[in-house]
Structures are given as C-alpha cells and as structure tokens.
C-alpha cells in the first residue's frame, strides 16, 4: 500500500484514469449515439413520428370522412387512382368497393391499426409486468403456477389463440384489443420475470430488503426500473406484431367490423377485386401497413442491439 501512496508516478497514472472518466459520456448520450449509428433505424424512427402524427391528426388531414355515410356514395365505388369522385374531390389512390376515398380510408385505418396495436401493447405490458414481477419476486409455488400458464399459452401460436377468442367474443375495437392483450401479456410476463430473476440477486435489492422497505416499493421502485431495457425492446417488437396480427384477423373476417375498417380490413375488402386487376384497394393500404411495421421493427431491432449488454464490447 505504501508504495502506491508514495509513488508519484502512480499518482500521475491515477489522474490519467480520472481524466478518462470525465471524457466518458452519460449513459443516455451513449445510448443515443449508439442508436444513431444505424442510419436505417433513425430513418425508421422519423417515419414512425410522421405516421403517428398523421394518425393523430386524421380528421384534419383526410380529404373526406370515410365513416360519414352521408358523404360516401356507392356511385364512387372502385374509381381508379386519380379519378374525381361525385363530390369533386380527386381520389388520388382511387376508391374502394363502398366508394370510400382510399387516402381518407387509409388515414383513418392507420389510426385504428395504430390505436389497437399500441393500446393492446400497453395494456398487455402493464399486466405482463405485474404478473412477471410478482412471479419473480414471490418465487416458489406462485412462480411455478404463473410460469406454467405462460408456457402453455406461449406454446400455442398467437394467431390461433386470438382467432378462438374473437370467434367467441365477436367483432369490435374493444374485443380486438382484449384478444390482442390476452395473446401478448405472456411474452411480457416471461421477459420481465427472466430479467427480474437476475436483478433480484443483485446487492441493491438485498440492501433494500435490509432497509425494511415494503415489498411493493422494492418491486416497483427498485426492481422494475432495472428491468426496463428488455421491456422496451420487447414492447417495440410486440406492438409491430400486434398491428400485423390485428390486420391478419381483420383479413380473416374477424377483428374489426366493416364500418370501422382498419388497414387489414381495407386490404381484405380489396382482395375480392384483385383478380380483376383493381389492385389499388389492396396494395396501398398494404404498403401503409408495411411501412408502419417495418419502421417499428427497424427501431426495435436497433434498440435490441444497443440495449443488449451481451453484445456490447
């Protein structure tokens, strides 16, 4: 010890190290710069912002109101892109079988698709977090029962579970969200349990227990914040998955009703005309759906690379 304290050369080296630390970035900055290294992901992020804005502002942006039966005329049905409708508005992307302007229908459809996807994702996440944390924290029988349920549910494909639920429940926004929540919660629960089990053995949890903090406080104020990184990644991917699943269910004739068409329902509507070459009714909503999902996945993919400590050098 004495050697270290008395050796001026060593002290100098210590100072060097400190300088080094000052130069280091804050975690948030490092996260941002890491994330921005992939230009594609940044691009995806901006697309998501634009899409979200369009969805929120739908009533102000859309040229017509596709839900207003008074203005939608069957005489306008299946107009080609660029033709003018009865009202004089030009349907730049054509109209669908019911005479709705595709641009407007897509903007509103996007709103529903995003709303259902994000809404179900958030609810499923909250439920999954609660069960997963409880399971990890309680351990023992509660844990094994919860995880058995999760395992069994996850062994069946999401599409089947959602299908059965919607057959039972019927159509509608609320029912679709319920079905998607049931399908998704288990993913969140399993992810957070896995992380929480690792974090629970860390010293800060032990010290929190020693301080006599309440279980709830330890779970939600100490354990949860440290388990959030994987949840963000899973959450992003799951929302993309939920949007895709909702579209698929609507295509199969379940999920969203005809009166409130989501992007999936619009594509489904156009499918019957595809063989006669009226491509636009299916193609354009599909592209909108695709861009949405790809953007979210690009961001999610990058988030996983950046937030995954195993891959960091």
């Amino acid at each position, binding site marked *: 010890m004495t050697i270290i304290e008395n050796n001026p050369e060593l002290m100098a080296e210590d100072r060097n190290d400190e300088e080094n630390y000052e130069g280091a970035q804050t975690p948030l900055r490092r996260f941002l710069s890491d994330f921005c290294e992939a230009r594609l992901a940044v691009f995806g992020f901006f697309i998501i912002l634009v899409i979200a804005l369009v969805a929120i502002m739908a009533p102000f942006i859309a040229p017509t109101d596709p839900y207003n039966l008074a203005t939608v005329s069957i005489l306008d049905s299946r107009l080609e892109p660029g033709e003018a409708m009865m009202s004089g508005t030009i349907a730049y992307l054509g109209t669908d079988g019911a005479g709705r302007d595709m641009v407007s229908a897509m903007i509103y459809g996007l709103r529903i698709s995003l709303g259902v996807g994000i809404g179900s994702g958030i609810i499923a996440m909250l439920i999954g977090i609660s069960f997963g944390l409880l399971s990890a924290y309680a351990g023992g029988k509660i844990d094994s029962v919860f995880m058995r349920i999760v395992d069994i549910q996850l*062994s*069946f494909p999401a599409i089947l579970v959602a299908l059965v639920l919607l057959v039972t429940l019927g159509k509608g926004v609320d029912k679709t969200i319920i079905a998607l929540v049931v399908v998704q919660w288990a993913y969140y629960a399993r992810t957070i349990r896995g992380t929480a089990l690792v974090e629970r053995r860390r010293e800060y949890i032990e010290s929190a227990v020693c301080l006599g903090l309440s279980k709830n406080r330890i779970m939600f104020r100490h354990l949860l914040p440290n388990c959030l990184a994987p949840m963000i990644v899973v959450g992003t991917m799951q929302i993309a998955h939920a949007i*895709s699943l909702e*579209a*698929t269910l609507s295509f199969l004739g379940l999920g969203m009703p005809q009166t409130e068409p989501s992007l999936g329902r619009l594509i489904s509507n156009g499918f019957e005309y595809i063989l006669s070459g009226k491509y636009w009714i*299916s193609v354009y909503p599909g592209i909108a759906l695709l861009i949405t999902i*790809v953007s979210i996945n690009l961001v999610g993919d990058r988030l996983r690379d950046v937030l995954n400590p195993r891959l960091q050098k």
Partner: protein
Amino acid sequence: MQSALVVVIMSFIVFSGVFLVGDPVEILVSDDADQEEREMMIKSMGLDKPFLVQYGIFISKAVRGDLGDSFVFQEPALLLILDRMPATMELAVVALLIAIIFGIPLGVWAGLKPESLASKSIMTGSILGFSLPTFWVGIMMILLFAVLLGWLPSTGRGDVQIILGMPISVFSWDGFSHVLMPAVNLALFKLSMVIRLARAGTREVMHQDYIKFARAKGLKESRIILVHVLKNILIPVVTVLGLEFGGLVAFSVVTETVFAWPGMGKLLIDSIGLLDRPIIVAYLMIIVFLFVFINLVVDICYSILDPRVRLEDIKS
C-alpha cells in the same frame, strides 16, 4: 402426464369458448321455417341440453374418436378435417423445407461476414420478412405472378397423386405450380426466423475457442463451417423449427384463405363463418394434439443432436 392434462384443460376451454359463439340455428334454418322446425333442429343437434351435459357428451364421444357431426355437412367433423389434413401438412412441410434450405445457408453466410454488404442486405431482408403481414404478401404474390405475369395459378391445389396412401401434389408440374406460391408465402416468416437464428448462432460459435483450435489443426475452412459450426447451430435451429411446425400449421389458416388451398385451415375459417361448432372444436382439438405430439418429437430430436442432453437423461 402433463401433456394429457393440457389436452383435457384445452378441451374444456375450447368447448366452452366455442359454446358461447352465436346461434348456429339462425344460420342453418331457412328463414321461412316455423317454430316447430326450429325446435326439431335444436333437439337433433343436442343444443337444448345444459352446457355441462353437452360437454360431458362431447368428452365421452371424443375419447371414442367421435368429435361430433358437422352441422353443415352432416358428416363426422373429425373425418372432414382428416380429409383436409394432408393438403395442409403438405403445404406446411414444403414451407418448412423452403425455410431450412434457404434460411440456414443465408444465415450462416450473414454470420460469417457480418460487416459485408450482402450480410446487411440479408438481415434487412429478414426484418422485412418479419414485418410483412403474410396475407398481404400472399395477395401481392397473386397480383404479380398470377394476374400480371400469369406464370402461376392463383388458387386451388391442382393435380394430386396418391403416394403411400396420401394425396400429394408436389410431384407433378401442375401440382407443384399450385403449391409453390402458398408454400413460399407460408415459409417467409419462418425463413426470416431461421436466417436470424443461424446468423446469431454462427456469430457466437465463430468466436469460440474450439473454432480457433480447429483452425490451428489445419482444417479446411469448408470443414470448419460445414461440420464444426453447422452442427452447433443446428441444435437451436432444429428445436425452434420443430416447435414452430405447429405454428406453420396454425398459420396456414391465413395462407389457405388467401390461396383457396383446400386444407383444414380453410375449412376452419369457412366453418367460423357458418358457425359450424363441431368442426371448430374438432379442429382446435386436433391442433392441441398436434402440438403435444410435436413437443415430444422435438425433445427426441434434441437429444439426438446434443450429446450433453443425452448424458443428463441417462443420469436422471
């Protein structure tokens, strides 16, 4: 043991779930039927009994292999589904083969040269494969290859030969041209998954000391990749793919609907539209059995591939 429990629980969930679905009589009875005819109908279908009694009848028949008669076709639901099963299985198997044959080489390649342009394109492509909703890709494939180019038939199954007692279509050109598009469509998602698994596995294995040691032995790069790397990554890929085969069968519901492929998935969707409860229940029960069976098979495959698992089994 656990599998049996799963089957029993699922049967209850499925039956009670489907029991709640709408009123099949509404659809089946013609509009001008009078009250008496309706009640005859309800009685003949056993719908007048309480729920638990119906479930009891269902179970006692089910163990004897009778999953009830279809309301619509008036035939045993199980037979109707088994009749459609080969078509679905063929589709799923071809899709699985496509996913493996293209997915593993692409994934390994992407894993070997993670910084190359080709590798990055493969990975971006796989994100696309994950993101594209299957049904929309199917519609686009029909639009492109059937409507615009006219290369492939848009719907149906085409010629079928009976091989080993099973109707199979891939061995004739007509049959193959029919199965190609739906199979590719169904494979797309799994293909992306195999690529990602193979790539991640390759990247991890390539950094292991035993690969460097294999190089130090003077092995050719081809042997290192084909034997040392491949055998290691096959374990996770086979496990996941095996488990996902059930997913393929389930997801063929979508592909079959798009391509009007006469499999059991199409039958399910049609039956949902017609509220044909026995078929829905029978389909779901068969799927449950299939999943339990697949889990068993995967466990066996796993122990063949990974010597470490085998040892633990012997110990325990």
